[in-house]
């Protein structure tokens, strides 16, 4: 298998977003165009320079991209729609990156845009029953895991609340975030109890929004006169799907570790090199589990890494400085590209009061229903 490191270098040259928000009358076209125009402006290029586009969405319908791009001038660019559940935006980004890396295109766009409501899960058409009526609901799996870890290693409801309070507070400083209120551990614990010790503020909201990233080759960067220091290198791009459960670890957690390790290998880095990570905290416990499986904290010590401030902005490796899925939001199609938006700004040193000091290496890591897992490593060259 060819790796990204065997192909020509690819850089993120522009990012843009439409804020994530609760379901509204806003049209997907308006949200998508806001994100794309933001990314074009950020890159300092015009739409006709973009040779291909990948559109990540789950709930809009067929051929959303063409309809959006008609309003930017019909340039005839190659246009493909991508659905990969929560990882749709990440997968759109991967394909744009690979297209430039392979030499097929010089400038490619990935945009994620979504509305709540029309998502249909294929698993419901499998015609295979499960013993439990909640067997395909990830929240229940993770709440069961939280219960088990409470007994096995003293993981407390306060630890879960601390993840959520950190991410809500990060989101309160993020103008693109769906939740804009700082939250305390007490407020998170006192929100509505959902399952086991998991409360509503420990879970990501449903919503809508858009995020976009433009990637380009070194040739294009020279030709387009993009200023040095701004392009952010994409050093790894890895996607895998889960294997049957072995023992008691949730298969998606085992998978997340495999993908992170493959990404480190492809990028030639170690976990200790990471300065900022955006990860899939659909539920607070996931952040604790993934900081361990990613090697940021020793196995079984995820809550200590959190309590000691290791994952705070300014800590060893800030985790979800955007607010993550819990705070920034999780509109599905855009989510993975919202992560790329955050990391790009971190690595450029443009992230304002959410800036991780001296950030040079970042990882965006997503899980998609099913499960699939996808990781990208970005570096400041």
């Amino acid at each position, binding site marked *: 298998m060819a790796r990204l490191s065997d192909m020509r270098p690819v850089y993120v040259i522009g990012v843009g977003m439409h804020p994530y928000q609760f379901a509204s009358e806003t049209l997907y076209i308006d949200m998508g165009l806001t994100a794309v125009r933001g990314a074009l402006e950020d890159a300092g290029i015009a739409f006709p320079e973009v040779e291909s586009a990948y559109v990540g969405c789950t709930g809009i319908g067929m051929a959303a991209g063409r309809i959006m791009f008609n309003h930017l001038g019909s340039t005839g660019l190659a246009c493909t729609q991508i659905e990969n559940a929560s990882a749709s935006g990440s997968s759109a980004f991967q394909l744009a990156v690979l297209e430039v890396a392979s030499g097929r295109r010089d400038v490619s766009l990935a945009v994620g845009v979504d509305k709540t409501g029309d998502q249909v899960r294929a698993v419901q058409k499998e015609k*295979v029953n499960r*013993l*439990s009526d*909640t067997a395909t609901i990830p929240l229940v799996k993770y709440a069961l895991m939280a219960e088990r870890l409470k007994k096995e290693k003293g993981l407390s409801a306060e630890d879960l609340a601390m993840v959520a309070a950190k991410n809500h507070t990060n989101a309160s400083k993020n103008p693109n975030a769906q939740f804009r209120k700082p939250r305390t551990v007490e407020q998170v614990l006192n929100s509505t*109890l*959902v399952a*086991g010790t998991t409360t509503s503020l420990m879970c990501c909201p449903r919503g809508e929004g858009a995020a976009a990233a433009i990637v380009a080759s070194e040739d294009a960067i020279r030709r387009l006169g993009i200023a040095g220091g701004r392009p952010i290198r994409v050093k790894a791009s890895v996607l895998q799907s889960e294997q*049957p459960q072995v023992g*008691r670890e949730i298969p998606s957690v085992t998978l997340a570790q495999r993908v992170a390790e493959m990404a480190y290998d492809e990028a030639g880095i170690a976990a200790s090199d990471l300065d900022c990570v955006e990860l899939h905290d659909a539920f607070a416990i996931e952040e604790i589990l993934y900081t361990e499986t990613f090697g940021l904290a020793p196995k079984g010590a995820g809550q200590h890494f959190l309590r000691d401030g290791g994952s705070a902005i300014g800590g060893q490796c800030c985790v979800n400085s955007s607010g993550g899925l819990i705070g920034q939001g999780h509109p599905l199609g855009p989510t993975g590209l919202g992560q790329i938006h955050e990391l790009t700004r971190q690595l450029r040193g443009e992230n304002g009061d959410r800036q991780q000091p001296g950030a040079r290496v970042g990882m965006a890591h997503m899980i998609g229903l099913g499960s699939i897992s996808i990781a990208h490593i970005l570096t400041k060259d």
Partner: protein
Amino acid sequence: MTALEKPDLYEIDGTGPALKLIFGQCAACKEQHFPHTGYGCPRCGARPEQVTPEARDGRATLLTFITLHAKLAPGITPPCVVAEAEIAPGMIEEVMLSGSAAQYRDGMTIVARAEEVERNGETVLACRFAPEEEV
């Protein structure tokens, strides 16, 4: 007789409320899986003709359980208890427990039994696990 809610997963064991679970037994890899489906063996990919359904007693080891407080799926009425249980060596499934959490502890033996639930205005027999001594 009252219909089973999910007859592809379980069958009545004798006359009582106890249920047997329907596993798939693969002739190609000799491995067992759950649930049995019409698609073939999920372990080795063998065609459906290679897999035979095999009903086994619904005894399991309770691993972890939690109370659901929100209506996370159409079929459930919170508060209700869901669990992870080992239904055969190395085979862990999410199951629904009978009654409230107070009567359960990790590691105990639980048994599948039929319990009446309402589905679209009709009464059907669903699979709920209960402490062994109760069944």
